[in-house]
């Protein structure tokens, strides 16, 4: 039960993740990659939290830890107060239904042997939701929601028969089909043009409104983070270096890295009104 409104949904305490690359030559200490370094972070229920940072700074790693695709080297992560790395059996299955990830690269994350219908319908099947007909209409509806319309045109296709941005929208559809409580969206619109990206942002805002869904929005695009997020965290070399409201981060950045990030945002100006 949620006792306090605005209480934190997700909490990370002192989370470190190290990778030890398997090298054939004498492994020196420096070859160890510290992807996350003592990260403390808490995300409130119903919040859209933006995570921005340079390539390799640890954004995806953080997301994967939160949905328990990986275990931290040290530190703890909890969802609604209970530690996620001790979940087993039915409570793990329950966790999997409440927490979804939109993966960064839809070329890699979509199974090439599954049709679009199977891809999006799979979470429904795993969770035992609805009968065949109900699932079909749910999948078609979700396709329309992400702008793959008419849904029938895409239903029986396979990932390789879709463009990059269409695959990305299938990945989004798969993540929202269960109406989860928490979504890690790893660069969910990186391949989409402005018209479609903004429609999907509007969609995410609507879903948040309707289901009080919580979103971790990982991106390189500060303008998108600014548009969508309540708060933004800036991650640099595995450390969260600044967390603040979106307005503050953009208007009054503190950390030098944040300032640099704002300076290099692509701007677009051809003297238009």
């Amino acid at each position: 039960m949620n006792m306090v409104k605005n209480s934190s949904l997700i909490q990370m305490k002192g989370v470190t993740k190290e990778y030890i690359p398997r090298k054939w030559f004498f492994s020196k200490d420096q070859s160890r990659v510290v992807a996350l370094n003592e990260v403390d972070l808490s995300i409130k229920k119903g919040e859209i939290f933006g995570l921005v940072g340079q390539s390799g700074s640890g954004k995806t790693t953080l997301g994967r830890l939160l949905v328990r695709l990986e275990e931290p080297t040290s530190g703890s992560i909890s969802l609604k107060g209970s530690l996620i790395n001790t979940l087993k059996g039915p409570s793990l299955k329950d966790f999997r239904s409440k927490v979804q990830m939109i993966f960064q690269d839809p070329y890699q994350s979509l199974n090439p042997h599954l049709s679009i219908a199977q891809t999006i319908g799979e979470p429904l099947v795993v969770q035992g939701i609805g009968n065949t007909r109900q699932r079909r209409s749910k999948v078609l509806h979700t396709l329309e929601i992400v702008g793959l319309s008419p849904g029938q045109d895409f239903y029986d296709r396979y990932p390789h028969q879709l463009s990059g941005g269409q695959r990305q929208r299938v990945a989004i559809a798969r993540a929202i089909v269960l109406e989860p409580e928490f979504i890690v969206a790893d660069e969910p619109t990186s391949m989409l043009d402005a018209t479609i990206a903004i429609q999907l942002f509007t969609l995410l805002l609507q879903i948040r409104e309707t289901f009080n869904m919580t979103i971790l929005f990982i991106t390189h695009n500060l303008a998108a983070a600014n548009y969508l997020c309540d708060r933004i965290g800036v991650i640099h070399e595995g450390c969260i270096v600044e967390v603040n409201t979106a307005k503050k981060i953009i208007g009054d950045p503190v950390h030098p890295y944040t300032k640099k990030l704002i300076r290099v945002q692509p701007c677009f100006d051809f003297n238009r009104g």
Partner: protein
Amino acid sequence: MALISIKNLSIGYQTKGGLLKAVDNISFEIEQGRPLGLVGESGCGKTTIGMTLMGLLPDNARILSGSIDFQNHDLTQLGEDQWRKIRGKDIAMIFQAAMNALNPVMRVDEQVIEAIVTHKPGISPGDLDKRVKELFDLVEIPRIRMKDYPHEYSGGMKQRVIIAMALACNPQLIIADEPTTALDVIVQDQILQEIRSLQMIMDTGLIFISHDIAVVASVCRDICVMYGGQIVEMGTREEVFGTPCHPYTKTLLGSYLSLNNEWKVIIPTMRKAPDLTLKSGCCRFAVNCKICSNAGTSGIPSWINISKTHRALCCSEGIIRKKK
């Protein structure tokens, strides 16, 4: 003379639902040293054009009509043997999301070496080593990580390897399909600068595909805007982005988010996807077009010249005067 010239090209995919004309009657030319930017909606046919220029269309695709002139050949007529001599050497492509094309069980530097050796079998070990290091420096991957496996790289680092591989053989025409999509803005900035300067030094032809108008504008002087398989507007970047005429171009520009315009962006209502089964020559944008729905036009657009270099494909002459 144009390096490559594409005339009335149409490409279709055979699907259960019928023939999808993913590319409908497009024409454009590329000059050496004058990069052309292709922008447009997700699914509008950008990658399909790139794949056609590499001779890599999938089995269910067919060139329906048109020609592609490159070095006195019509590329639409080539067989696989002839393609093998051109592909990767004269025409190279940075594939969209190619980072998953990296071989997971092969060290990254070996894969770059392979890209070089395929087309330069006679290269000396010394030159090869030098070239590999050069390429890693160019895309700013620390040499200490050259011997890593792809899974040890972040998404951005993998994409940089892919760019290095496409540059390996100094091709004449490079098709860069969303080459910076996976990169953070800081690295994107560097890579775009790199692409610009390489382009000047090597004087290659470049087709730069992106969904991001700011990225395209930073590299390309000429712009083609695509919608639903058709080129709907073309001109210099100042013309197309400064005084857009086609209603789709206007929507695209109006919905572009930047750091200080969040209150001004236009959120288009979820529009109907373009119908790719339409007869060739019909306006694909008409279902979403205010001009057409108000005026009840024919739905058969024609090219409207706005300047010598700037034109738009539309059913209404009015678009010229309505520019903002």
